């Protein structure tokens, strides 16, 4: 794409800038503020970078269940290459989900801050943004409700605390029919495998992102009514439990 002549003359007057491949006009003006090494920047022909797009356009931007199923199927197949066993496969699926959790966390908060006002630029004070979770219960409610709705358009089915006194750091989130497993039948010889380990990875990413070190795993707990019922076991680390005690003493909610 050839640059219009007016534009190229502008580049020439900006003597300080070294020969740059960047053809973005704003780039030129900002270089005069802070000199930094220029690198080739390709901007789409309509000059709309991802920074110019809205993050809230989710109404008509849903992907079909079938394309997700094929995509996820390929992810499982990919993760299956050269694995040593079921645990290794689950670990890989978990690792695929983890970075997604970190990203979703930011997106989730961004969307919930700006749902009431159409744009952040509206000068009036927008509705008070949701708080970052400080306690385990608020975090789990965030996962059980808003996160699940963002991902699957419904809340999770149950949230429980371990009844055993030995494991006060264990919590269970139940999904009766995980979307990721809808079309998946695990062969009998791998019956321990649950592909929702991917979702467990997402949960782990969200917990870690919020500062709650945790290990999350997915377990099959089929019932007559829900053959693919899955329980996500969330195990928080010692540091989290310790901090939880301190926060409780200080009355932080």
């Amino acid at each position: 794409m050839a640059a219009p002549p007016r534009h190229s003359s502008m580049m020439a007057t900006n003597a300080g800038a070294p020969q740059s491949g960047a053809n973005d006009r704003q780039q030129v003006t900002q270089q005069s503020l802070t000199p930094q090494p220029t690198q080739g920047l390709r901007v789409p022909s309509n000059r709309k970078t991802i920074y110019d797009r809205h993050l809230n356009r989710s109404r008509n931007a849903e992907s079909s269940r079938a394309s997700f199923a094929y995509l996820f199927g390929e992810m499982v197949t990919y993760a299956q290459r050269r694995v040593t066993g079921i645990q290794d496969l689950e670990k890989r699926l978990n690792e695929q989900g983890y970075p997604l959790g970190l990203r979703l966390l930011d997106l989730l908060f961004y969307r919930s801050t700006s749902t009431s006002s159409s744009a952040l630029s509206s000068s009036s004070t927008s509705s008070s943004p949701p708080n970052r979770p400080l306690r385990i219960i608020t975090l789990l409610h965030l996962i059980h409700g808003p996160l699940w709705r963002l991902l699957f358009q419904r809340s999770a089915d149950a949230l429980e605390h371990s009844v055993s006194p030995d494991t006060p750091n264990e919590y269970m989130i139940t999904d009766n029919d995980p979307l990721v497993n809808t079309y998946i039948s695990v062969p009998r010889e791998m019956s321990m495998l649950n592909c929702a380990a991917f979702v467990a990875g997402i949960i782990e990413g969200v917990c870690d992102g919020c500062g709650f070190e945790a290990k999350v795993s997915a377990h099959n707990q089929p019932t007559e009514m829900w053959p693919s019922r899955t329980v996500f076991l969330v195990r928080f680390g010692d540091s989290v439990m310790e901090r939880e005690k301190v926060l409780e003493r200080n009355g932080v909610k």
Partner: protein
Amino acid sequence: MLHTQAVFSLIIINKAGGLIYQREFQAGLRKLSTNDYLVLAGTFHGVHAITRSITPKIPLAPTTNSPAASPGTSTPAASSYSYPNPGASVSGLDYLESDKFRLTCFQTLTGTKFLLFTDPMTGNVETIINKIYDLYADYVMKNPFYQLEMPVRCEAFDRHLGAWLRGRT
């Protein structure tokens, strides 16, 4: 009446003629040995291919040939024959009927064949087969653990197929 809606059994044959799925939906059917089912699938595959290739063609209506052409040389070339309905693809054996059952064959675009054994009185077999194809596309083809052309062992497919057929009667 239950019997008029009866679906007896289902067989799925892959594009190479191998049996990849076989299931009965009614108690009290005569069982064949596994080997016989394989033979049945292979035989049907062959018969289907033969019926497709012997589909008769009819000569095209002569399009005002030049009058100079002598009658002796006008042996029509192969291209002047056509299927009765050139728009429709050649399907081969579609169904086979006896007075006790009806066998309906449905072939997908990729060459997989679904054979459905039903009561001859059962209506709307096409709908049933389409639904089975739907379930197959969902629970077999979207399953990452299913290897193409291999026997179908998908628990979710079995479950949904059974539940749907039970629900219709």
